[in-house]
Structure formats: structure tokens, C-alpha cells
């Protein structure tokens, strides 16, 4: 249209939306516009209205006030929906729930089939879409056989096959491991380079700062909007938005304590560039103090453990092979390793949900392979917090759910309510307030705390955790971590599975690195990083180590934390 001002690709004008039965609006008078070809990150706490915004954008929900235009089309008009959705596609958080068909290529074809294209055109689009998300070789696989990362890429292929030029990702990476996330980032960067617009809802601050523009939603309001440097300018407000600084930003602040005037950076490459430019040097620290396990009795011991899945089917999969492991009372160990390396099976063996096919196992002095062992009682002494444990809450009220475990153990009456109180207090949900609180009304972070309380109420001697902070907003993740660190201080034996190297080291110097169903390295993290390339376990050095490695090629393995880095960094003013 010559002579007219170019219309924004997506435009929200004073949009409000309230879910039926709720008194507080999920979105409250939100206005913004997005140009075509931009890469925008949308951040905010759990329940801040991010997902609602994404659903409004493609017309799955209709605004009660204001209007939304996508490429000039009003989302409230039903007959625009098809055009809007073929221009802007939404990829959901849960990788497997959004898949319609049972075969990969048929799922990618679902969108174009709805557009009533002819079959030759559909086939062409499906091939192109699968190619562009690099899963063409899997095109005839069953969709349930894909990994979460592959399923998420299939979700994107389904959107691309519609001919969409804009991708809206609703926390699409939150259920992926670092590898899957990395691949997703590369893919998004490429698609953005090819001219696609990207609107990315994320909980990962370090990913948000890679966008050209960030928008912050807080309690339904657009709290901030601008380029990523706003995280530096408005640092004090981050906590009130349920956000945290990026890890790099946090490190910069710690450095500023030692090197006055040290500027803030958001991205790793900016920080290392600055350090190099300003002539900072790293001197290798003396060998770190050696890790020694506590001098206590053995809690768990596994010898030569073997476990195979699907023995009856034609394709057995070896999940664990020849695994040796021992854990002392009060000791903590962080378990790292790629997806499929056997970590989850390992945890389930420690909880006796699974038993080894061969090998010996002793847990808290008992042998679960002995048919006389009461597994039910043993399991309650070894608490397992599964991935996304909040999904397993089944009672209506928080107190009842927390009481389930101990009541199955035969605890009754006053002793039972004491246990519930103790557990809820431990996770920071005051008993008086939350005992009769409906589970449904809890926020995401609170639900996870309640689920943890349900395990703690059984007073386990060993606590097994499978990615306890995955999928939580930055603030909730931090508070979860603090709860766990307190439990650790109180002397609980802890096994923590995580994908995050920094988190692993915050919990324990002892790392167990899994690969191909067995423990590749077990022991002092410092020794591991000094002597081995972390890539062999599918990981990277911790952030401080990566920064140090950029300044000194041998420093990567010797520096594990911000404190190590600060101790070994020499600035120009001293040199």
C-alpha cells in the first residue's frame, strides 16, 4: 500500500483478558507491536500471563478488551483465524502433547492438510519443513519414539509447513536438556537469519538476552519493554518481576566487588571480550583443596549393577551396565550426563522402583533383591522426587497430599499432623496457611514445594532428586535450591540429577558423570575438570571456568566457581 505507514506485523492494543471464574485479569491492558523479522524474548514469572499472551496472539483466546492485529487481521474475527495461524505458528511447552499423528511426516502434514492443499504440495512442504529442522532422516519414525528435543523440532516443522513466517515459542525449551536446548537455539538463530520472526517465551535469562528485544510481563502487565540492556538498567526490579540476573551479570557484580567500577555484562562473549581488552590475566591457582567424603557409614552401595529395558520386546535397551557406586551417610553427590545415559534408571534403582537384573545392591543396610525385604518400607526411607513432581499431586488439599506418604506408613493422628507441619515448614509453605489450601490454587513453584514436602513428610534418610528446578521461573528455582541446601546442611544424604554444571557444583564437589549406562567418572569435580574434557560427559566447564579458559588455555579445569575466578584474576591496575 503506497503512501501508508507500514503496519506492524503483530499489534496488541490495550488488550485485557480474564479467565472465566477468576477475579484477577491474566492480561491487563497490554499494548505493544512487533515488526516483521524481529527476535523478541518475553520473560516473566510463572503465572505472569505469558502463555495467555501467546494464545491470544493466534486467536485461541479472544480478548475481552482491546484488539489484536496479526498482519492487519483482527483475531476476534473467526474467518481470519486460518490466515492468522498460517502466518504465526505456536509451539507449545510440552513436546509430546502437541503431536497429533503417529508418524513423523504425517504429523508435519497435519497443518497443510487443514489448509486443503493438494497432496503433491503437502509432500513438498513436509519435506522442506523436516529438512529445515534437521529431522528428515526420522520422517517415517513413530512420533512416540522421538526424544523430547526431536519432538520439539517436529512441533516447529509442523508450524513451518503451514508456511508460517513467525514462530511463537511458549517455553518450548523448558523440557529439553542442554543439548536439545542448544540445538533449538542454533535452529532458531538460523530461521531468524532466514527472515523468520521469533517471539520466544522463556525462563532462561541467558537465552532472553540473545534476543534483539525483551519484554517483561509481571502479573498481567507489561512491566518493561526494550533491548536486553534493560536488565542492567533495571537490575533492582528483577526480583519483583520474579526474574534473576543472568549468570554472567551475577559474576560481573561479584567482580565489581574486587575490581571497583567493573561494568555489567549480560552475555559471556561480552564479558570475555572486555576482560581481554582490558588486559586481565589469570594465574593458575594452587591445586584446589581435595574433596574427602564424610567419615560415616555407607548408606547405599551398588556393585556390578546391570539393568535392561524391554527384555520381552524384540529390541532390548541396556540402561545400566556394570555400575559401581557407593554413598556415605550425609554425603551429597551430583549426577551429570546426557539424556539416555542412565541417570533416571540409576535413581529408580536407588529407590527400588526398579531392581537390577544382575549385580548386588545394599540400601540402608538392606538387600532389596531379597524377597523378604519390605520394599514399601524401604522406599519411604529413600525419598525420590521425580521430574516435575507437581504433576503427581493428587489430593485436593495441600495438607492431605503431604499426609499421603506418612499415612501409608501407618503414622496417624497427632503424629501425622506433626509430620505434615514439619514438612510444610521445611519447604517454606507455612502449615497454618497451606494445610487446607487447594492444590490447584498454588503457583508452579509452590506446587513443586508441596510435592517435595510430600516426600519429606516420610522423613527419608536419603533424598533423590531428578532435576528439581527444571521448568521453574528463575526466582522459584532459586528458592527451591535454597530449601534443598538447607536440608543438606541438616545432614540429609542427597543424590541430585541435574543438567546444570554450576548447580551440580553448588550442591556437591563430588560429581558422578554418566555415559552409556555407566559411571564414567566419579569423584572430586575439581579433579574431573582438571584432567578430563567435560565434553566426554556431554557438558561444558562451569561459567567461571569458561571465562578463565578464554584468558588462559589451561585454566578451564582449575576454576570452578566465581570465588575461584576472582582469586586468580589479576587486573591491569595490579599488573
Amino acid at each position: 500500500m503506497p503512501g501508508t505507514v507500514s503496519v506492524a506485523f503483530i499489534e496488541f492494543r490495550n488488550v485485557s483478558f480474564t479467565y472465566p471464574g477468576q477475579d484477577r485479569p491474566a492480561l491487563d491492558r497490554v499494548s505493544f507491536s512487533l515488526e516483521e523479522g524481529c527476535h523478541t524474548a518475553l520473560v516473566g514469572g510463572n503465572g505472569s500471563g505469558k502463555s495467555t499472551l501467546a494464545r491470544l496472539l493466534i486467536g485461541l483466546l479472544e480478548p475481552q478488551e482491546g484488539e489484536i492485529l496479526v498482519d492487519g487481521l483482527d483475531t476476534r474475527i473467526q474467518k481470519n483465524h486460518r490466515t492468522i495461524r498460517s502466518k504465526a505458528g505456536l509451539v507449545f511447552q510440552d513436546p509430546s502433547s502437541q503431536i497429533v499423528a503417529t508418524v513423523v511426516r504425517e504429523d508435519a502434514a497435519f497443518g497443510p492438510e487443514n489448509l486443503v492443499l493438494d497432496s503433491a504440495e503437502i509432500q513438498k512442504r513436509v519435506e522442506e519443513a523436516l529438512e529445515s529442522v534437521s529431522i528428515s532422516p526420522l520422517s517415517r519414525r513413530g512420533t512416540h519414539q522421538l526424544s523430547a528435543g526431536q519432538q520439539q523440532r517436529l512441533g516447529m516443522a509442523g508450524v513451518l509447513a503451514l508456511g508460517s513466517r513467525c514462530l511463537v515459542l511458549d517455553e518450548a525449551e523448558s523440557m529439553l536438556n542442554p543439548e536439545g536446548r542448544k540445538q533449538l537455539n542454533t535452529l532458531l538463530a538460523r530461521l531468524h537469519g532466514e527472515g523468520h520472526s521469533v517471539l520466544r517465551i522463556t525462563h532462561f535469562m541467558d537465552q532472553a538476552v540473545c534476543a534483539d528485544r525483551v519484554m517483561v510481563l509481571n502479573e498481567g502487565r507489561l512491566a518493561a519493554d526494550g533491548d536486553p540492556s534493560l536488565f542492567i538498567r533495571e537490575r533492582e526490579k528483577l526480583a519483583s518481576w520474579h526474574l534473576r540476573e543472568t549468570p554472567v551479570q551475577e559474576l560481573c557484580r561479584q567482580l565489581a566487588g574486587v575490581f571497583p567500577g567493573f561494568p555489567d555484562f549480560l552475555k559471556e562473549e561480552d564479558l570475555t571480550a572486555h576482560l581481554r581488552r582490558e588486559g586481565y590475566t589469570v594465574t593458575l591457582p594452587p591445586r584446589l583443596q581435595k574433596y574427602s567424603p564424610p567419615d560415616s557409614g555407607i548408606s547405599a552401595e551398588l556393585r556390578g549393577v546391570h539393568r535392561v529395558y524391554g527384555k520381552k520386546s524384540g529390541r532390548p535397551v541396556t540402561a545400566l551396565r556394570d555400575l559401581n557406586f557407593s554413598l556415605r551417610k550425609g554425603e551429597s553427590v551430583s549426577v551429570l550426563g546426557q539424556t539416555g545415559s542412565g541417570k533416571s534408571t540409576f535413581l529408580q534403582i536407588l529407590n527400588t522402583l526398579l531392581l537390577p537384573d544382575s549385580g548386588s545392591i545394599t540400601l540402608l543396610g538392606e538387600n532389596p533383591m531379597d524377597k523378604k525385604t519390605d520394599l514399601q518400607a524401604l522406599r519411604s526411607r529413600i525419598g525420590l522426587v521425580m521430574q516435575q513432581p507437581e504433576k503427581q499431586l493428587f489430593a485436593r488439599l495441600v495438607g492431605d497430599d503431604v499426609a499421603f506418604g506418612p499415612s501409608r506408613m501407618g503414622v496417624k493422628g497427632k503424629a501425622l499432623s506433626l509430620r505434615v507441619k514439619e514438612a510444610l515448614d521445611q519447604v517454606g509453605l507455612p502449615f497454618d496457611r497451606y494445610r487446607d489450601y487447594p492444590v490447584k490454587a498454588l503457583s508452579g513453584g509452590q506446587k513443586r514445594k508441596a510435592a517435595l514436602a510430600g516426600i519429606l513428610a516420610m522423613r527419608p534418610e536419603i533424598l533423590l532428586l531428578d532435576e528439581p528446578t527444571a521448568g521453574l521461573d528463575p526466582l522459584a528455582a532459586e528458592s527451591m535450591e535454597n530449601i534443598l541446601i538447607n536440608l543438606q546442611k541438616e545432614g540429609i544424604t542427597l543424590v541430585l540429577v541435574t543438567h546444570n554444571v554450576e548447580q551440580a557444583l553448588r550442591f556437591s564437589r563430588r560429581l558422578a558423570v554418566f555415559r552409556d549406562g555407566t559411571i564414567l567418572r566419579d569423584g572430586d569435580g575439581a579433579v574431573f575438570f582438571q584432567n578430563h574434557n567435560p565434553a566426554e560427559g556431554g557438558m561444558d566447564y562451569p561459567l567461571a571456568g569458561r571465562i578463565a579458559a578464554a584468558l588462559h588455555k589451561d585454566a578451564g579445569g582449575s576454576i570452578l566457581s566465581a570465588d575461584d575466578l576472582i582469586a586468580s584474576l589479576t587486573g591491569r591496575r595490579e599488573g
Partner: protein
Amino acid sequence: MNDFEILQNLSVGQYQPGNSAVHHLNPALKLVSLILGMIIVFASPLFPQLPVFFLLLFLTGRTAGLSLRNLLGGVRPVLPFLVLIALIQMFLIPRDHSGEALLQISRFGVYPEDLLFTARLFSRFFCLFLLFTLFTSVTTVSEISHGAELLFRPLGGKSGLSHDLSLVITITFRFIPLLALEAEHITKAQASRGGSFGTWRMGLVKKIRLYIPLLVPLFVAALERAEILVEAMEARCYEPGRERSRLNEYPWKGRDTAALCLVILAFFLLPGSRFLISMKLFI
């Protein structure tokens, strides 16, 4: 114990990829053949029609590159039940006996009629089982749904009813592995919190009692997933009742006509032959 691997234990007919003529038949024809085949099994007398039908199925399987072994591989877990049913039928159901008992064990007698009945039961079962595995081995889920769509088209093609019905079939199959995984998660979560799944002493009754409370969370999980799926489908331009097109078209070919003729021939000959034979006997 340790039977958490629910997906592994599901014995649903599995598609066996192949490139044979049988694989490439029109899906609507395959569905029609399945239905006609079932009628043949139920309407045919025992001998010689059922063995002949079994042989025909076996030959079709051969053409599709499937051995009898992998076609009937899944029958094993069902066999004990079948034997049990046969025993009950033979000894506990009163029947008119014309002749002498062939074998007498205390008050239970085995009569020729009983044997005939058991033989019929087994042959029908094996024919049906073979028919079903053959069908699912050469037909993908999307072919089944496409075939159903073609067959339902006369019921209201314009309104998109047949499209929706076929989608229902696809999604049903999609949910099988999802529900199996979900059930696995829920049992594990309950077990780790003191539920007695997967412990050593477990009688059948206790097992059944345990699985009943499982149904509620499983149902909730299924509904939640369904809700997301609906959103995901709508996000990809799905509108109920609207015309859709297909990734793969299955044009009707010459060989489909030939196969249809054969199926119809068998349909009339096999059950019909009972009259031919009985007439001959009376002459």
C-alpha cells in the same frame, strides 16, 4: 514385580513396514476385507472352510513377506485363557449328546460334540487372530483412518464428518503410548510415596485393587493432554467439520479391483459352500 514397563507389555498389532502388493492395496479395500473376513470366520462351518480360509490368509501373509511365526507370535499370552474357556465349555456346559462318551473321567465325559465345539472355537480364534495381525501388519494407522474416511464418505462427506471420524481414529492410536507412559509415571510416583506397586508379595486381587485408584489421575492426565492437543490442533488451522486434504492419496488401481473380486469370491464361496456340501451329503 517391577512391571512398570506398561508400553512394552502392550500387545497391540504392530505395523511391519514392507513394499509388497498387499501393503500397497487401497486402505478402504483393506478395511472392507477385514470386515468381510470376520463375517467369513463367523459364518463358515468348521471343515473344510476354516482351514481353507486359514491357508488363504497364510498365503496373503506370505505375499506380504510375513511368516506365520511373526503373525502368530502374539498369540502366546492369550493361549492359557483360550484353553481355560475350552475346558469350561467342554465340561461344564451341558450339551445334547447323541453318541457315547469317548472318554470318561469320573463324572466328566468327553463327547464327539465337545471335541467338535473345541475345534471350532480354536479354528475361529486362530483365523480371527491371523486376520487381525495380518491387517495391522500391512496397514498403518493413517491408512486405517484414511480407509475409514473413504468408507464413511457416503454418510456425509460434504460436512466433513468422515474427516473428523478418521481423525478420531488417528488420535486414539496416538494416545495409546501417551497413556501407557502416563500410567507408568503415576504408578512410579505412588510407589515411591508408599503405594505398594511393584513390591514382592502381590496377589491378583490386590493388584486389581491397586490399579483402580490409578484410573482417576490417569483420566485427569489424559484430559489435560487432550486439552493441549486441541489447542495444538487449532493452532495448526484445524477446524472441526471442515474439509481437509491428505498427505498421501490412494487412487484406486487395477490390482485393487482384482483383489476386491477375490475377496468377494471368497466371501460367497466359503460360507456358501456349507449348502453345496450339505446338499451333496443328502443326495
